[in-house]
């Protein structure tokens, strides 16, 4: 031991001598050789010295100009916070967090933070929108209006001329410089706050793509595409013969193993070149170690080794389209197995937040800032790959990994926002609660057809466990927000319920004489291409509703607007209301809503003519949603996607918690915008449909109560 100690001591002394000698040499030679040390010193000193100098100058400038800037803002009339009741409002959105489950888990003691919040503040079920789906509900949240004013009625709408489905909230047209247009109407309430000088930090609120200009920062969410322009296309690389599987929402790439190496390409965006379209590709290789069930993936300069079922971190991929046409994306790899067949999952290649191909944030540098300060993060609108899970490419644990990773990324962003915004608005939406409901509800429902068949039962408690994780995260957020001038609201846009049976509404319309197929109809054809429009009076498209084939509105409309159309609407409502499933004897459709009567506003005629309110356990079938017409009206749902909320909104309310008392018995999601404006002392615009909720703003008074 002594010898070792002595050796260590000698080593230390030697190191010290070397450092000392180097230091002396530097000092001794400094003056005459100062010009001779060249780039070494240049690199070391110039860059960092410039940073320090810039920071110091900027600090001095900030301090000296602060009073002047304060005066200028005051003179400009931005009397921000002049009438404000609070300094900061924080919304934590938990997409799809179900009220029934939350209440049950609170009673069971699984959600201690939410239970405590209910006790000291406020809790209520939150009224959602018709339809109770994410894009519609969050659009109502941010505009404070009913869908008739913000124009978002579904994920999808249809092209009136061709009947083809298209995204409801954004229109992306190709070309050398793609044009992206937001189809949501109405003004987000943070824009109104900004006009009154109040800063907002908005993170991943759905239907905020493309990002709009306002006073604040915003990271877009739902409908942000991947680098291919799709809403998320995963890739599955395998040595299996190609015809063994076809996947929804992804593609299979058959690869060939040469010894222990596989070479293939990642598929990137399509660009125009020399008058034609070219798909950009990025090569990668995999070196397989069968003995240890590992593989080393090499993409560009990055090389990393993955074990079986292990996910990689975000990897940057560069697609080279020529000079000034490089497109950068990020993706994750998961090695599924090396034997008997090699199988690897690659997530949709998402827009690199550090070098976005087009803006995904406002200002554009905000996504760069987040990436630099916190590392790469998922940017795709629907970041969690439900399609790959449905297709059993991702197993239950793999999908859950994606959910929890997205949550961790989001929590870091939220914490940073809370650190950065001491007064103003912070909104952050977590999606994983919705995804976990969708994909693991089958473990909660013993009658679900897909209860078995997706991995083992180890994740039977995935939903309660995930809700508990979210509760713990909320605990951290609430502690960070524990200031007397901060109001925290935790809400979900809707809940969820089991999706056991799908309803092919188009088949029902055919069976009841409202729709006709072409004589040469091909089985499995999508997008309603088999429909004989000259004999069709109504059709279903998307998740939410039914459209009339209205003359002068639809491409080949035959129903006369006015009396005939009104009669048809009433007739369909009457016949579909209370529709029973002959196999189970259950009522599949509780209510059918006539949009013209239900919505108010300039865009109500853009809605599906009828909105279908399904009962618990039912939803529009997968096939009907994409215009593929099957042979039977009712069919079991065998996908991992086992819960949904495209049902009667009364069945799937959201949740609302607040750290203050609120006087409201039936709050609705569209009340959030006017309530926030009121908290900041800003007049509520007349076109908002929501009401101002009475929030207790003085915590001392509240405690005394």
């Amino acid at each position, binding site marked *: 031991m002594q010898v070792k100690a002595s050796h260590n001591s000698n080593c230390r002394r030697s190191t010290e001598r070397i450092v000392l000698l*180097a230091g002396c*040499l*530097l000092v*001794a*030679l400094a003056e*005459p*050789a100062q*010009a*001779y*040390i*060249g*780039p*070494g*010193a*240049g*690199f*070391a*000193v*110039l*860059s*960092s*010295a410039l*940073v*320090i100098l*810039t*920071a*110091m100058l*900027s*600090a001095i400038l*900030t*301090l000296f100009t*602060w009073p002047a*800037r304060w005066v200028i803002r005051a003179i400009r009339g931005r009397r921000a916070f002049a009438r404000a009741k609070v300094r900061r409002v924080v919304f934590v959105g938990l997409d799809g967090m179900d009220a029934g489950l939350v209440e049950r888990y609170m009673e069971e003691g699984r959600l201690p933070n939410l239970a405590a919040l209910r006790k000291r503040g406020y809790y209520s079920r939150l009224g959602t929108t018709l339809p109770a789906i994410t894009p519609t509900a969050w659009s109502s949240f941010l505009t404070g209006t009913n869908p008739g004013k913000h124009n978002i009625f579904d994920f999808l709408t249809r092209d009136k001329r061709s009947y083809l489905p298209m995204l409801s909230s954004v229109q992306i047209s190709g070309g050398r410089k793609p044009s992206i247009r937001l189809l949501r109407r109405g003004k987000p309430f943070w824009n109104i706050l900004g006009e009154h000088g109040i*800063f907002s930090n908005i993170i991943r609120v759905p239907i905020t793509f493309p990002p709009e200009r306002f006073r604040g*920062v915003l990271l877009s969410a739902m409908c942000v595409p991947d680098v291919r322009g799709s809403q998320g296309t995963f890739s599955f690389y395998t040595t299996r013969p190609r015809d063994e599987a076809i996947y929804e929402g992804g593609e299979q790439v058959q690869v060939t193993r040469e010894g222990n190496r596989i070479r293939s390409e990642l598929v990137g965006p399509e660009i125009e070149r020399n008058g034609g379209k070219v798909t950009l590709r990025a090569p990668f290789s995999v070196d397989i170690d069968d003995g240890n069930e590992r593989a080393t993936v090499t993409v560009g*300069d990055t090389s990393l080794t993955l074990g079986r079922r292990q996910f990689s971190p975000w990897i940057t991929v560069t697609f080279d389209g020529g000079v000034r046409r490089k497109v950068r994306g990020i993706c994750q790899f998961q090695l599924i197995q090396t034997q008997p067949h090699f199988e690897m999952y690659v997530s949709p290649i998402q827009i690199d937040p550090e070098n976005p191909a087009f803006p995904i944030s406002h*200002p554009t*540098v*905000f996504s*760069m*800032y987040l990436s*630099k*300060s916190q590392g790469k993060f998922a940017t795709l609108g629907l970041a969690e790959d439900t399609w790959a899970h449905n297709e059993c490419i991702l197993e239950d644990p793999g999908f859950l990994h994606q959910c929890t990773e997205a949550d961790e990324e989001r929590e870091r962003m939220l914490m940073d926002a809370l*650190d*950065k*915004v*001491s007064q103003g608005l912070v909104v952050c939406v977590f999606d994983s609660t919705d995804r976990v409901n969708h994909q693991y509800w089958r473990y909660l429902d013993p009658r679900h057809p897909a209860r078995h068949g997706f991995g083992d039962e180890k994740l039977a408690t995935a939903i309660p466990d995930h809700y508990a994780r979210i509760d713990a995260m909320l605990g951290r957020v609430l502690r960070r927000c524990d200031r007397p001038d901060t109001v925290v609201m935790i809400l979900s846009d809707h809940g969820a319920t089991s999706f056991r049976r799908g309803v092919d509404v188009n088949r029902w319309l055919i069976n009841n004489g409202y729709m006709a197929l072409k004589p040469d109809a091909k089985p499995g054809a999508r997008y309603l291409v088999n429909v004989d429009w000259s004999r069709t009076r109504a059709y279903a498209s998307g998740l939410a509703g039914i459209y009339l084939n209205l003359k002068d509105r639809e491409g080949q409309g035959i129903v006369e607007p006015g009396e005939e159309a009104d009669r048809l609407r009433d007739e369909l409502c009457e016949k579909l209301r209370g529709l029973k499933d002959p196999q189970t004897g259950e009522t599949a459709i509780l209510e059918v809503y006539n949009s013209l009567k239900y919505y108010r506003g300039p865009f109500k005629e853009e809605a599906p003519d009828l909105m279908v309110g399904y009962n618990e356990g039912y939803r529009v079938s997968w096939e009907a949603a994409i215009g593929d017409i099957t042979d039977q009206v009712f069919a079991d749902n065998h996908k991992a996607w086992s819960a949904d909320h495209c049902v009667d909104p009364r069945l799937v309310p959201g949740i609302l918690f607040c750290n203050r008392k609120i006087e409201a018995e039936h709050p609705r999601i569209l009340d959030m915008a006017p309530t926030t404006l009121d908290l900041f002392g800003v007049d509520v615009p007349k076109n908002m449909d929501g009401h101002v909720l009475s929030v207790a703003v003085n915590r001392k008074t509240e405690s005394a109560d």
Partner: protein
Amino acid sequence: MGVLNSILTALFDTVYAVLGLGPRWLSLTILSGVVGVIALIVVRFCSNQAAIGRVKDDIKANMLSLKLFKDELRVVLKAQARLVWAGLRMQYYMVPPLLVMFIPFVLVAAQMGLRYQWRPVETNEPTDLTVLLRPDVPDSALNWVLETPDGVEASPSGRGVRINADRKAVVWNLTGRKPGRHVLTLQNGTESVTKEFVVGRDQDRVSPMRPGPSLLDRILYPAERPFGSDSIIQSIAVTYPPRDSWFHGADWWVFWFLVLSIVIALLLKPVFGVKL
């Protein structure tokens, strides 16, 4: 040091035999580029690139933070403090490559100095030769005799002017009559030493000083074999005129060498995958 200098001088003489065929600005640019690339490689392998990457991300994040949250005074001041801290961390991470590069680059720069800082004297252009002696030598040690080769004239011929004040030195005026690399011989009794003297060939490198035992002189004047520590001579120096050019002339060349090598390195850093 002497061996290393001999090798480096021979190497640079060979390199300049080629580079000297072109204009001097070109040789300076090429050498700056080569040095920049070598510096990049040194930084790549001798620094903690991952840590530098993190610091750079930190710097960019805080810079962006200043822009994005400019109205939050607390955030702005915090970002500025973090920038200062990141700058210091960056300097810390650059110390290892700096230590590795320091000595080699000083040696390289010293070789370049012989070629860009001074020029040979022109034919018939007068200059001085100074022999600097140890201060403790007796007066008899000042009796040095200069033997000039054909093409070089010394004044006074033979023994030089002796200076015996605060330092002990012997000085001659020299005039080159023929262009060429001449060898001057100095004798004092049985002791004989030499010093090279370059006349009239503009592209040639010069050796302003044959150094003594001083480490600094040995580094900065590497062309001739230095005197040992037992020698009574501290140095023999020829006063060469400075080169006159705003780019590759005296003093300027160092500036442009520094700028060009850094700029070229910065331009090429993506090629070498180096984080700076």
